[in-house]
């Protein structure tokens, strides 16, 4: 019975376990597959040209060996893993790759990839790290360059009409994903944190329209399901760096807690704001991909022009959306997680903890190595945290 009622989730799990299978089928039918790293490349451009966007992930179950020739071992193990898989041929099928300036390590990954993996088309968007007016203008200019490069590669034009259509389809995916997240507001939630990662990862491995159909199917069956997560003592929010494997999430959910909300990039960060349909659609895209996506790789002070700095007001303007999440999803505690050596997320942690303390929400910081084997000590920390808040 379960197999019949959970067809959408079963398909999600299949794609989660073997991401490239579907896009390789599409490739055999003549489609071009474009890999992208992180959530900052403007996917609507790809969709408008019928290029299939395929997100590049690492593999925490594969030891990093070959990437050590290119990157120091004391940098982000996720990005090292991505490059390692590229060097080992895991992404050989890609027709193109698009990266952005996630951080300095992400930028260096692009150079190494271009030099040693040699995907036929490679483009790097030097996305700014602040949201000043000048940054936004600069970002708009960078997107014009990206558009031209894609047009010259495909020999096709990205017309405003095509782009608007693409924005609508992507916005539809964002809205559907938020609908799925709404089902986590229930107690117990209808979808687990682990399943949500699987859904997001599956969507990032499919053409967007195909993903939307799958997501509609998942939502309708999840609404009816009776085999969802059990009620637990604590409802948790997980904030942090990329979780592209369910191991950490499932380890936490095996304890007396449900993860009901996240602020991560294989999760809400990619879906929680829409692209505005502006007169020139590229303006809306430039704004969305720089300002609306809330990842610590972009610095957003409360007020750039303020002459006196108020720490708590600054925290409030940067992190109040997390208080909204906590309220709407009835969160009892927050797990801040980061891969080791991620300065981008690590530097955010002390201020985030100050903020959560100020609103009376307990939190714990877990740093992990992006390996499956090193999770046991984290279980003790997570369980200890649950015992404190329980």
């Amino acid at each position, binding site marked *: 019975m379960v197999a019949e009622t959970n067809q959408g989730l079963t398909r999600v799990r299949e794609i989660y376990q073997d991401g490239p299978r579907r896009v390789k089928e599409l490739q055999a039918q003549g489609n071009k597959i474009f890999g992208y790293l992180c959530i900052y490349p403007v996917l609507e451009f790809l969709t408008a040209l019928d290029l299939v966007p395929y997100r590049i992930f690492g593999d925490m179950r594969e030891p990093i060996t070959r990437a050590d020739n290119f990157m120091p071992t004391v940098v982000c193990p996720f990005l090292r893993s991505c490059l390692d898989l590229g060097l080992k041929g895991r992404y050989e099928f890609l027709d193109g790759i698009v990266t952005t300036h996630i951080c300095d390590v992400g930028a260096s990954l692009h150079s190494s990839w271009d030099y040693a993996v040699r995907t036929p088309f490679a483009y790097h968007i030097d996305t700014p790290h602040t949201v000043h007016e000048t940054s936004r203008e600069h970002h708009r200019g960078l997107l014009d360059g990206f558009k031209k490069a894609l047009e010259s590669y495909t020999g096709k034009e990205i017309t405003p009409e095509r782009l608007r259509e693409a924005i609508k389809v992507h916005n539809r995916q964002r809205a559907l994903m938020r609908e799925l997240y709404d089902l986590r507001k229930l107690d117990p939630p209808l979808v687990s944190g682990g399943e949500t990662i699987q859904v997001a990862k599956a969507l990032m491995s499919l053409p967007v329209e195909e993903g939307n159909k799958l997501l509609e199917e998942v939502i309708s069956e999840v609404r009816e399901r009776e085999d969802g997560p059990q009620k637990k003592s604590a409802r948790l929010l997980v904030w942090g760096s990329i979780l592209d494997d369910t191991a950490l999430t499932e380890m936490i959910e095996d304890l007396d807690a449900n993860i009901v909300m996240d602020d991560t990039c294989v999760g809400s960060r990619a879906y929680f704001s829409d692209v505005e349909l502006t007169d020139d659609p590229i303006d809306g895209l430039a704004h969305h991909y720089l300002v609306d996506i809330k990842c610590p790789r972009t610095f957003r002070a409360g007020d750039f022009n303020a002459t006196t700095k108020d720490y708590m007001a600054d925290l409030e303007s940067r992190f109040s959306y997390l208080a909204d999440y906590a309220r709407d999803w009835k969160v009892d505690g927050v797990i801040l997680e980061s891969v080791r050596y991620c300065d981008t997320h690590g530097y955010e942690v002390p201020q985030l903890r100050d903020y959560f303390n100020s609103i009376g929400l307990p939190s714990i910081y877990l740093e992990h190595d992006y390996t499956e084997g090193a999770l*046991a*000590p984290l279980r*003790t*920390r997570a*369980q*200890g945290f649950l*015992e*404190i808040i329980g």
Partner: protein
Amino acid sequence: MYFAGIDLGSTMTKVVIIGEDEQVCASIIRHTGAEHRRLANKVMEEALEQAGLPIDEISYLIATGYGRINVPFADRQVTELTCHARGVASFFPGVSLAIDIGGQDAKGLKVRDGKLIDFVMSDKCAAGTGRFLEVLSATLGLRLEDLGDISLKSRNRVSISSTCTIFARQEVVNHLSDGVPLEDIVAGLHSAIASRVASMVRRLKVEPDVVFTGGVAKNIGVVKALEENLGCQVLIPEEPLLSGAIGAALLGKELTLKALAEGEPIQRGKRRLEEATFFK
């Protein structure tokens, strides 16, 4: 009613059985070993024998420690963080900071009114743990249990600059070849482990009472070095290895009495006194 706590540490397995009056009826300390984890039942049987009780007489049994998931007969698993805090508070009700240095990790526990409120842990490497001393006592050709007394004879402690076990071993070998007296090297090692743990627990704010538990608390040299580093007196329980198991037994009593008072059933496990298998 009787309550049992079993603490499967990475190095030592401890079992304590207490009565309703919180008096200890049995306490056992054994090496965990490679296969011992699968034989928690044997240690439990030994404790039951010592107490003269069948397992059915135990009202509640809590497993704690790294191996807590490998105790099929436990009613509940609770982390060693919570259990240590509870156990330490039973010996020293005024405890504010508990430091536990075990075989493979070091923990700092912030305790208020007998309850755990925050913690820090180091378990990534052997630095600042009992394993550090185990490895280096072998290098020095000394027995682990003699290190404390030997270090007290030191007049000119050497500085061990690395807390990494591998690099510290190289330093020790260098000092030995330079003819440095053993007691000065041992005192240097104690100082290295104490300064590493002290800097970790300072994140929790050091206020009296500070209590030190775990196997390493049996080493008087580390105790002195820790006091010197933290600048305050450090209290040691009579048997520093048992605080986790005692805490687990006490928590079992609390949970049982709470359930009885609220008229709720006591959630017991399956109570099969058998070894844990890795295949469910």
